[in-house]
Every structure is written in structure tokens, then in C-alpha cells.
């Protein structure tokens, strides 16, 4: 079951990457970057369960924190009217 979830997460990771590269506006890209990082965290924790080592969850929590910092930094330097 975890393996199926992992495959689903990887498929959506590919979709988010496509949006990040094609994305016409900057907001699309910021959102895609955020969701890519979230999906990476998800795939990491699922991978931990697939390989039978749930300690990966701690690392996943740390990645989520870093993702939050990165997104806030991106939005802080976002000047309106410029894309």
C-alpha cells in the first residue's frame, strides 16, 4: 500500500515539476516549488515506511521547516508588478 502511495506521489511530483518549468507567471512557479518540496517530504516519509525505517519521519519534519523558510523568503523578496 505504501508503495502505491509512493508511486502516486512521484507522479504528482512530475506534474508539479512540469508546472514549475512551464508556469507562465511567477506565482505558479512559487506554488509549484512549494508543492514539489512538500511532495518530496511525503515521498521521503513513504520511502521510510517502504524500507521499514520510520526514523525518516524526523528528517521529513526538518525538510518541512526548511521548505517553510524558503517559501517565506521567496515571498518576502517578491516585488509587486514584476514578473
Amino acid at each position, binding site marked *: 500500500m505504501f508503495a502505491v502511495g509512493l508511486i502516486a506521489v512521484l507522479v504528482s511530483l512530475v506534474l508539479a515539476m512540469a508546472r514549475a*518549468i512551464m508556469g507562465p507567471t511567477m506565482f505558479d*512557479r512559487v506554488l509549484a*516549488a512549494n508543492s514539489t518540496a512538500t511532495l518530496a517530504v511525503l515521498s521521503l516519509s513513504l520511502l521510510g515506511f517502504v524500507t521499514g525505517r520510520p526514523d525518516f519521519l524526523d528528517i521529513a519534519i526538518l*525538510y518541512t521547516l*526548511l521548505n517553510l523558510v*524558503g517559501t517565506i523568503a*521567496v515571498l518576502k523578496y517578491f516585488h509587486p508588478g514584476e514578473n
Partner: protein
Amino acid sequence: MVAAVIGVIRSRNLFVVVILGGIYSFLMATVMVALDAVDVAMTEAAVGAGMSTVLLLAVLGLVKTREAPLRHSPFIPLLVCFLTGAVLIYGTLDLPPFGRQDTPTNQHVAPYYIKNSVKETGSPNIVTAVLASYRGYDTLGETTVIFTGGIGVLILLSTSRRRREKQSSKKDSLT
């Protein structure tokens, strides 16, 4: 990841490049965790996805977000890159095969670490034990170097900002 790199190369907007670079770092960190290099992955996520994104955005606040057009042909740098890569690949041909037990690097101190690190340091992760305990002074020196570098960058940035403020206040007093 390959798609992210191609996007980085093809994009002319530097903001997009920064965001795609952050995505690349995050995926790279996940791959490293999957390869059981947890501490390297932690560094990659903290430095690559976190810090360097913030620093590059801070630089983008100072410069323009459009890449300048090329003034010379890109083929000579490309040729140099390919030549260097070819030389490096040629160099790896002489290395012993990956993961063999009788290579020189696995003969020296690695068996000692594997046998004694849990007993002597109490850390379940051997890499952490080597970095923080056996090479503790080395790691302390690296941290000092990085800390000094950070202080230097902060000093440089703050002096340029202060000068700009002084200029603007001078302009205000003139008008």
C-alpha cells in the same frame, strides 16, 4: 532533476532560476536520503534549499532580474567543460570498483571505526561519530571558517547599505 537543470539553463529570468535551483536541491536531498547518506542530505537541504535560496534572493534584490545577453560565442566554454569532464571520467577509470572491501581506503581506519565507534562515542551513526568525535577539531575548524565567512559577508553588505543611506540623506539635505 534533469528537467529542473534544463529549465535553469534555458530560463532567462533569474528569479525562475533561483526557484528551480531550490527545487533541484530538495530533490537531490531526497535522493541522498534514499541512498542512506542522511547527514549529507541534511546539509544539502539546509544549505542548498534553505540558505542559498535566501542568499540568492537577497542578491536578486540588489541586481536586475534579467540575464544580460551573451556578448561572445558560448562554444569555447562548452568545449572546455566537455574536455574537463572527459579528463575527470578518464581519471575515475583507475579507481577501484565501488564498495570493494580490499581497497586502500577501506583498509586504513574504517574497520577501527566500525568496530569501536558505538563503544567509544555512544553514537549509533558511524558517520556522525567520525565527524563529531574522531574529527572533532577538524569540524570545529570548518565551523569557524564558515562563521568567519558569514561575518565578512554581513560586514560588506552592511557597509554598502550604510553608504547608500548616507548618500540619500545628503541628497535630502541639499534639496
